[in-house]
């Protein structure tokens, strides 16, 4: 699954970012493999997402988030 499929409050781990225009930029925002992500809020449907990456918040568009592969964290 990818980052844009995450529901509000759900946590996951990043598996990797697809190579492309956004790759480097997303890595620099902390979306490296292994990073913990949580969806804090989605705006205008899911066109804009506020995501907590290892405790720090970033904002990104849904279509950009779709290039980030994630694995859902098991419910505790």
């Amino acid at each position, binding site marked *: 699954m990818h980052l844009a499929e995450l529901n509000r409050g759900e946590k996951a781990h990043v598996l990797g970012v697809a190579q492309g225009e956004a790759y480097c930029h997303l890595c620099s925002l902390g979306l490296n493999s292994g990073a913990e992500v949580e969806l804090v809020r989605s705006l205008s449907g899911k066109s804009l997402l506020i995501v907590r990456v290892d405790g720090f*918040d970033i904002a*990104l568009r849904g279509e950009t988030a779709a290039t980030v592969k994630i694995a859902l964290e098991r419910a505790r």
Partner: protein
Amino acid sequence: MSTLIAPAPATVAPRPAGGAYRTVGLIGPPNVGKTTLFNRLTGMRQKVSNYSGVTVEHRSGKLKSGQTVVDLPGVWSLTPESEDQKIAVNVLMGKQHNVAKLDAVLLVVDGTQLHRYMTLIGQVLACGLPTLVLINMADELTARKGFIDPLAVARELGAPTALISASRGTGMDAITRFLSGEHAAAALLPVLQAGGNAAPGCATDCNNLTKTGAYRRPNHSRFTREFDRWALHPVIGPILCLLFIMAAFQIMFRAAYPAGTALSNWLSAIGATIGAHIPNAIVSAILVDGIWNGVASVLGFLPTILCMFVVITVLEDSGYMARAAVIADRTMGRVGLNGRSFLPLLSAYACAVPAIMATRAIPSKKDRLATILIAPFMTCSARLPVYALLIAAFIPARKLLGNALGLQAITMMLLYALGLLAALFTAKLLNFSMLKGQPSLFAIELPNYRLPRLRTILLAIYDRSKVFLKQVGTVILVLNLAVWFLSHMPFHNGQPSEVGASYLAHLGDLIEPLLRPLGLTRNVGISLLTAFVARESVVSTLATLYGSVNAGVALRAEIGLAGALALLVFFALAMQCTATLAVVRRETNSWKWPLVQMGYMTVLAYAASFVTYRIALAFHV
């Protein structure tokens, strides 16, 4: 705090002749206090902010010891993603024209988010230049219950490491010692190669730091999370953003503008006193009417312009600007732009020239060009004096909504909105025509909020006053003098001619037929001609033409409200700035774009102004 640790050197770079390094590069990601450190080291003035991508040009300065420090644009990795990152990489590799090859590197990172910079640290160290890793904001890390052991970090990285606080100035002695060549040990990290696309082990490296106990991440800022619940709320967020902007306009009109008027009146009173003491009438007229009054009327706008810059600096430095970019992204997305264009467009409210330079931080070429083309529509500070003059002269100071809002402030906001609408319309037009393409990506960090630093605000005020006063002292002064002479020549028997019979009047006669459909007169036409060199000089030109500081009253008798509205609309949309044309030529590297831009804006301004005048007449305004 100032710990400098030399690691066991793996590979030692040759020590420079004479011991100390001559040219040192300052590199680091955006938003880590790199510019603050640069200012502290060199004493040079530069804007510091809390928003990614503000430092777009490399700057250099001299240390007290005579060594040169080159401040590089912020980079996240050595894989160039945008124009400014390419520049940074070129300087680091010694391939940038006009920049000396670096002898050593100061690499600045933010201690509160060390895990995010491991890729960059690895890549910079792999370049093989003697490098000192500076972990900034160490004080904030400790305050937020984080921990860092610089000795262990230095061992893990294989490079000398120092904890500093650039804003407080602690740890600077470590830098001095490093730059003197005392710790000329460069370690080559075996894991990463510079310029590679992959970033292997960037998370693992930090995991190592965490495992060895060298680094513990700080707790999050509770205030930031709480406030963001409102600032990024789908409904409350945009309202809050609008409220901030409205508050800024109120401050500008309630406090800054009256202060400016007082300043201008005071200066012209001094002028009159000086004039009375000069025996020769012509010399007195040249000095007082030609120079002093013109300059005084423009100087009166200094408080308003500074107020605008203070607002922008506060928004940037507090961290709110990134949230505003998120809020704006939805609107920007509709016209084919993204939130990254927001900062350049917002700084275009101050001046289009630095705004166009700031577009270098936009990774997508298409977005960058679109932002450059629409930036001059945003209401720059040079338009403010003209708006302020016309509004004060033509719009009654009526209060609305009790005492909360004035009609004049609303008119001003409408003019700002007009510029913004024209910009959005043009962006949409470009997206459909000349700049068709894929939707661009948008991803931005939301930094912690912090109190704007007084030092940063004062620097912005100092910087902007300097630029503005220089403009007043040179271009505007010369223009005023030229306008005065043109409006009083030819001399007959040693006496100046009436303005109506002067050379300037002939020039005005030539363009008057073009302006008549807009309800404008010869005098306005003349002032619009001088505006090409400096927009704000319209005010002083009118003052010179009417022979009084209060050009508004004279104008009211001449063009009426319908003409004034047409003039406001024309001024809001026309591209009347040679400095902007020059910078667009430089940034797009062709004459095509500035010429297209100028032609388009002039036609749009003329058409909109004509329509405004006709509508106003139809409503018997």
